[in-house]
């Protein structure tokens, strides 16, 4: 094994270290022991790559940039949610066993790869940036001091480590319906603080539909964020305070009871989380939004009746698994998720969408 794992580059020879990696899929799995050569300056993702190149060519793992910027390589290392590519091996003792497991909060697909679609659903549900209607694109002007707070949240790389760590959904699967998670609280805060965002009910939305009240500000999201976004201090607590402004301030509350009774949206007033049945209709998995107008606008260019080619599923290997590593695959690169018989760009006539501003094609 030692020869197989021989380090590639120059520098000090590596040492063999002990790793436990969770291997398995939905039907079950276990921690598997490996001895892997580790060289100076390497990160955990390097070790996984070495494992794929040697003992475990079919070890599934997502990664992309190896620079802490794509947010793909989220995993749990010795129980702590971290980026594999940003966790240096030098942070562990020489004789320490390093345990690598997939993110716990999301369903597992295989080995270290999890299905993070929960986050994308929550992303689609969050109302988009809404500039004032009288402002033409190109006329947006804002001052740096005004947009600064929002910019902190733009650093997010969507690694979903915060979503994975948050005990609200990590330990209570049932809360996934009502709770959007810290990544979407920073999104709500980003837009609510944005100088050009004209949507006034983001605080109510955060409270009634994103489940802001579930957060008990225990700050684990902040602790694991690889971009060091002060999620709790700069987004969640300010949003909670903004909700207090609207909901719990007795003066404001009294005023709204007396003068604007009944004018406010009931859904916004309600403390109750969204009805799960609603998820299928209004918040469709196909990209629903909370804005009826936005929904209508988006549908204008779509021709539902048109025949679209059915996507071809990707090929599987002899064991019925996706060949995730190119080492075991008979093609030059990983298979296309769209099916290997699909080439891009797709012919325009075959699409079921045309931009609403362009002349509408007939079916």
């Amino acid at each position, binding site marked *: 094994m030692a020869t197989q794992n021989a380090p590639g580059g120059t520098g000090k020879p590596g040492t063999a270290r002990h790793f436990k990696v969770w291997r398995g899929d939905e039907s079950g799995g276990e921690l598997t022991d490996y001895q892997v050569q580790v060289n100076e300056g390497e990160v955990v993702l390097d070790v996984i790559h070495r494992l794929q190149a040697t003992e475990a060519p079919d070890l599934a793992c997502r990664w992309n940039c190896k620079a802490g910027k794509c947010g793909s390589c989220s995993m749990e290392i010795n129980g702590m*949610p971290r980026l594999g590519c940003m966790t240096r091996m030098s942070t562990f003792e020489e004789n320490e066993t390093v345990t690598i*497991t997939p993110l716990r909060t999301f369903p597992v697909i295989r080995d270290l790869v999890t299905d993070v679609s929960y986050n994308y659903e929550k992303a689609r549900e969050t109302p988009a940036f809404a500039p004032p209607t009288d402002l033409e694109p190109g006329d947006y002007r804002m001052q740096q001091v005004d947009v600064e707070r929002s910019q902190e949240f733009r650093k997010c790389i969507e690694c979903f480590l915060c979503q994975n760590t948050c005990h609200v959904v990590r*330990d209570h699967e049932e809360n996934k319906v009502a709770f959007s998670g810290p990544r979407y609280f920073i999104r709500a805060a980003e837009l609510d603080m944005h100088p050009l965002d004209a949507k006034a009910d983001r605080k109510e939305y955060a409270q009634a539909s994103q489940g802001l009240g579930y957060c008990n500000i225990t700050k684990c999201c902040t602790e694991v964020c690889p971009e060091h976004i002060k999620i709790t201090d700069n987004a969640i*607590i300010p949003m909670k305070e903004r909700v207090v402004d609207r909901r719990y301030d007795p003066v404001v509350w009294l005023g709204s009871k007396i003068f604007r009774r009944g004018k406010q949206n009931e859904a916004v007033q309600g403390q109750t989380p969204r009805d799960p049945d609603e998820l299928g209709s209004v918040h469709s998995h196909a990209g629903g939004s909370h804005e009826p107008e936005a929904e209508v606008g988006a549908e204008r260019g779509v021709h539902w009746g048109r025949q679209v080619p059915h996507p071809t599923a990707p090929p*599987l290997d002899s064991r019925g698994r996706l060949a995730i590593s190119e080492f075991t695959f008979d093609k030059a690169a990983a298979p296309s998720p769209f099916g290997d018989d699909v080439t891009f760009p797709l012919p325009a006539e075959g699409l079921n969408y045309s931009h609403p501003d362009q002349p509408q094609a007939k079916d």
Partner: protein
Amino acid sequence: MTTRTAPPPAGLPGSVRQRAAITAKTLRTDRWWFAPLLTVIGLGAWVTYATVRVFMHDYYWVEDFHYLTPFYSPCVTQACIPEAAHFGRVLPGWWIIPDAALTLPFLLLFRLTCYYYRKAYYRSFWLSPPACAVPDGHKTYSGETRFPLVGQNLHRYAFYAAVIISLINSWDAVLAFHSPKGFGFGLGNLILLGNVVMLWAYTLSCHSCRHIAGGRLKHFSKHPVRYRFWTFISKLNVRHMQLAWITLGTLALTDFYVMALSAGWFNDLRFIN
């Protein structure tokens, strides 16, 4: 090798995929239990000390130098020593009523609903969660969405009360410079002063204060003064946790010092008079 095709992707509405079956509750290998343990010990010790002192109804006033402990400020019951009661004695003097009964409940509320203390006791006493990526100690969880925890939103009002109480504490510290012999200055004054400065730092670094000062604005550029105020408080706010613990320390220290002087355990170190 590549003849079979994949089943339709799971994760669509209706289908429930399973999480990875990892048996260990947590795989953390560091001493994650250490911080919550320290919090339990620290808060537990402080609360015990404070409770004992509040119901002791004695040793809170140093006649010679006019030192009043913050735990009895303002002293408002009939049981108070008249010279120590700067704001009158309006409540009956039963032992069950703390001598600072008009302020202590608000201070308690202020600290209980403080965003930092919430984090501290949710993690350590309530184990929800004890540490990051360590399972919650409870079967169900609704966070701060319903009664009683929805009451945490009262923090804003507790903050207003705390500002008033800080003013009273500052007034006590000023009065302490005037002892029966005229102007006087000793170690006790420094301790009272230090405590008050720290209390102000803690109170101003409050998240609600940060919000009121400017955090709630959408356009900082239109409110330059409030923006500077917000910037200043944001700098303090980063240290809110440290200030929370420092003020627990200074409060206990101040109280202990006053108690020790009042009980005659040792003498104040006087610089003037």
